[in-house]
Each structure stands twice: as C-alpha cells, then as structure tokens.
C-alpha cells in the first residue's frame, strides 16, 4: 500500500503542534522564532501533500511564496532581536515584560 493523504496531513499536524508548543514553552527569542519557522514548514507539508494528490500546481506555488515570506520574516525578526538585544543584553522574552496590565 502507499502512504495516504491523511498520513501526510497527520504528520504536518503533529509538526505544527510541536511548533506551537515550542513557541509557548521556549524562552529564548531565537528559539521561539525557530519554532514559528517549524510551524510554517508544517503548513508547507500540507500544501505539498494536497498539491501532489490533486496534481495541482497551486499548492506548490503557495509553498514557494511561503518560503519567501519566511525569509522576509526571518530578516525582520532577527533585526528586531538584535535591536532589543542592544538595549537589554538578553534574549529571554520574559525579560521583555515592562508593558503589562
């Protein structure tokens, strides 16, 4: 037998979940950022899986665009991280909590 569509979907769901969990429990900004990347990749897997089961190019193009977006986010995100590191000398997100209540 061959891997079913649902297998791939399940796998991507699991990866997505792991990414989500990571975002919540990681304290290092960069680590959180990487978990977000993980989530995006999980979504990509879904796209590709659908695309290939439908024999449709749309999904793959979506993946293509998502990658661009990820790159852009990476650039900006790391810029932000550097900027905040300059003022705080730490990457612990929990330190960045003067804006509250």
């Amino acid at each position, binding site marked *: 037998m061959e891997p079913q569509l649902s297998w791939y979907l399940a796998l991507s769901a699991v990866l997505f979940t792991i990414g989500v969990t990571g975002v919540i429990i990681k304290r290092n900004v960069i680590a959180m950022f990487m978990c977000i990347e993980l989530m995006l990749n999980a979504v990509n897997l879904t796209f590709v899986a659908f695309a290939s089961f439908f*024999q449709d190019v749309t999904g793959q193009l979506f993946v293509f665009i998502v990658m661009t977006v990820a790159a852009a986010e990476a650039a900006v995100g790391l810029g932000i991280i550097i900027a905040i590191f300059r*003022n705080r000398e730490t990457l612990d997100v929990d330190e960045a909590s003067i*804006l509250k209540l």
Partner: protein
Amino acid sequence: MRLLLAQSTMPIINWALIAPELIVCGAAVLVMLVDAFVKPAQRWITGGIALAGLALGAAATIWLWASGTASYDAFNGMIVLDELRLGFTLIFLLVSFLTLLISTVWVEGEQLPAGEFHSLLMFATVGMMLMASGNDLVIVFLGLEILSIATYVMAGFRRTDVRSNESSLKYFILGSFSSAFLLYGIALVYGATSLAQPLPGGTFSRIIPGTTNIAELASRVNDAQYPALLFAGAAMMLVGFGFKIATAPFHIWTPDVYEGAPTPVTAFMAAGPKAAGFASFIRVFVFGLPFVVSSYSNAGGNLHRAWVGALIVMAILTMTLGNVVAIVQNNVKRMLAYSSIAHAGYALVGCVAAGATSDPAQRNTAITAVMFYLLTYAVMNIGAFAVVQVIARSGDRRTSVEDYSGIGFQSPVLAFALSLFMLSLLGMPLTAGFMGKVMVFGAAIDQGYFALVVIGVLNTAVSAYYYLRLIIVMFFGDRTTAWIAPPIPASVALALVLTILGVLYLGIFPGRVINGLQTRIESQFFTQR
C-alpha cells in the same frame, strides 16, 4: 497537455485595475531613492513625495470607481474590483495620509530615518490595499504579510526605546504565530475545497483540485470533498483575521503593542491594519463562505451558522473586555488601545449583520455600515492620537493620565480637540462616532440581533466612564505642576483641523459619505473567469 495548460492560463494583465497599488508602491520606492540622495536636512521632501503618492493613489481609486461600474476581476481572479475594495482603499489612503501628516515632524524630532519610515508606511499601505483587493487567498495572505512586516518594523522604530523594542518583539512573535494559523487555515481550505468526480465505470474518481480563489470557494462550499477540513480551515483563518482586527481572545497583543509603539505608529495601527483586517475578513468570510440559501442541512449552512455564531460571541467578548478593562488604565495610549479593541467589537456587530443576511441589499447596507464605522473610527482615532503625540513630546514621555491633569485651559486647542475626539469615540450625537454606531447597530437590529445591540449600547455607557475621565482630568481639575504648552507643528495642526472637520462633518451630514461608500455587490457569488 502542457501547451493547453500554458495557453489556457495566459496571464490576464490589467494594470489599470491595480493602478492605486502601483502608484503607492512606486511612490514608496521613489521615497527611498530620494531619501538616499538628499541631504539629511531635506528629508522632509520624502514626506511630501509620500503625501503626493497617496493623493495620486486616491485619485486613481476614484477614477476606477467612476469608470468601473460592474464588479469584475483580473489577473486570473486574483484582484477584484468592487465598492468593497475601493471604499476600503480610500479609507486606507486616508489613514496613511493622516498618519504621514502627524508623523513627518515627529520623525525628524526623534532623529529617526525619515525615508525608511515613510517608505515603510507606504508599503504597509500597499499591503492593506492588497488585502482589500485580493480575490484570492494568496493575495490576501501576501498583503497581510506585507502589512504585518512593515508594522513590525514601524512598531520598533525607536530602536533605543525599550518599550518600542518590546512592542515590536511581541507584535512580531504573536503576529507570525497567528499568521501561521492563517496559513494553515488556507492550506486546509485549499485541500478541502477539492471536488471528487467519479470516473465513468471506475472505482476511482477524478479529482478537481482545490481552490484558493474566493469566488470559486463560495461556489464550492456546499459540496466540498472534505467538509471537516473546510471547517477547521475556516476556524484557523478566523484566528488569523481575529488577530489582525484584535477581537477577543486574539486581542491580547494589542494593549502592549499599542502602548509601546511610537504614538504615530499606534495611531496608524489602530486605524489602518484593523480596517484592512475587516476588509479581508468580509471578503473571505462574507463572500467566501456566504449564506447559502436553502442549505441549512449541508456543509455550507453549517459552516455559515458556525462562523456567524462564533462571530457573535467574539463581538460580545471584544466589546465588553475592551471597555471594561479600559476603565482601569492609567496610560492614555493603553487606554486608547483598549478602546480600539472595544470599537473592533462594535464593528464586528456590523459584520455579524453582514454575514447573517441572505438578502444582497441588506448585506450591502451592513457592509457599508461597517465601512462607514471604520472610516469614522479612523478619523477620530487618528485625531485623538495626534493630540496624544503632541502632548507626549519626544520619547513618548507624557502619556499617563495625570500628565493631562488641568491642561484644559492652559492649552485649550489641544484639550478641546481631544475632548471632541473622546466624545466622538464615546458616540455622542453631532459627532462621527454617533453616526457610525447608529449605522452598525441599525444593521444588526435589521437582522434582529436585539440582545447583541443592547449589550453594545450598555458597553457604550460603560465606555463613557473612561472617555469622560480624560475630559474630567483635563478640565475639571487644576494642574499642580508647571505646564509648558507644547508647540503644535503645522502638519499636525493640519491633521487636527482635518480630523475635527471630519468628525463634525461625518457626524452632522454623513449622508453623502454613506451614499458614496454604498456597496452594490448584487450577486451571491462572483463571476468566474
């Protein structure tokens, strides 16, 4: 077959249709170029160029409006032209225009790179316009990402200010977090909306691939192959948009980010991206997952009921939470942040009406109401933030409520302007806010959502407390410490005049504007190319 594919999908290029986006985009690039080559002393030029670009964009939009009668689309159904898009585009352009007015001098004063700021603002505008004009989930997603990334940067624009850093960090992490959800939702919808056609005499069935085109989506809602995925996808997209328009419980980022971000940026974020979120939300949900007549048994009906129901709950939560928590705030920017949450809730009431109805005419009225509401909100909100920015001085130093104590008659212009905006936000008659509320609540009552509206007005009564509090602090008490009236730059003054006049005009003679924004989207589904 390959040829077929190539021919069948030659690009349908219609530059005219995206003229506003092109103009604004070009202006942004031009700003960067100019900025690179002029001396720091003449950075203000960039502001001028940006304003001109926005004005041109607005002109193009109006031209489109005048020329294009029926709503049609281009770029293989990627871009649509209808009043929904055009109205929102105008709102976005207005927001950016006012934001530029209140920010140019500020940028110089803070010794921040003006060119970058202006170009980013312009790019953000482009993003918003794309969100409104996109008829395909991919465009919507891209527009949203452009907008988000631009605003991440703008929120953290005062790099040396830890509050600014923090706000941009929070915005970035939570923003990309939620847009991942949106993306996942898109993926699931894409997969779910595929159709299975049984092949003649075979056990297998041929598969029509899923779609991301909103119009097709609407046509496929009923007989999607994987309805369950469709539901999950819709839910996740709702998360994504909910984050953008800051509905509870996805509002959670708003207060912190608004408080930390530089005041003009806050003004922009509260007015623009929120409106953009509503635009694409209406586009995707009201037109993508529409009320499918006589189908309350199957997927379409269930889905419609599901998201409308969820929307009602979210609206109530959002209004109540925003208003109630705003009461106990001591920082004006934060208070306004919560108030913006509350206003998102009011606008959602209109969206509920728009989504609930099956009658195109009523739906158009409701959508118009939402648009009008967001317009009024943008005007009065930016006005309020303009005053806040002037009073806060460089570095956003004076933003706590006690900083406003007793300034009423020491800088009367600012104080009375702010009072006017507060009353308008509160929704007193003769101001824009009142008409906006009347429109959205009216739309909801037309659909029979009395309880929702009653909750809305009770919330308004609650909100009176904190809006009036600012007026009370400014006028009813006397200032203990010394107060040096801050100078009002010409551009900010212009912005104030425009917003004040706007508030009064929209409050007293709104008929013209309402007629202008009136959408005429008759068809249940969009015409497909």
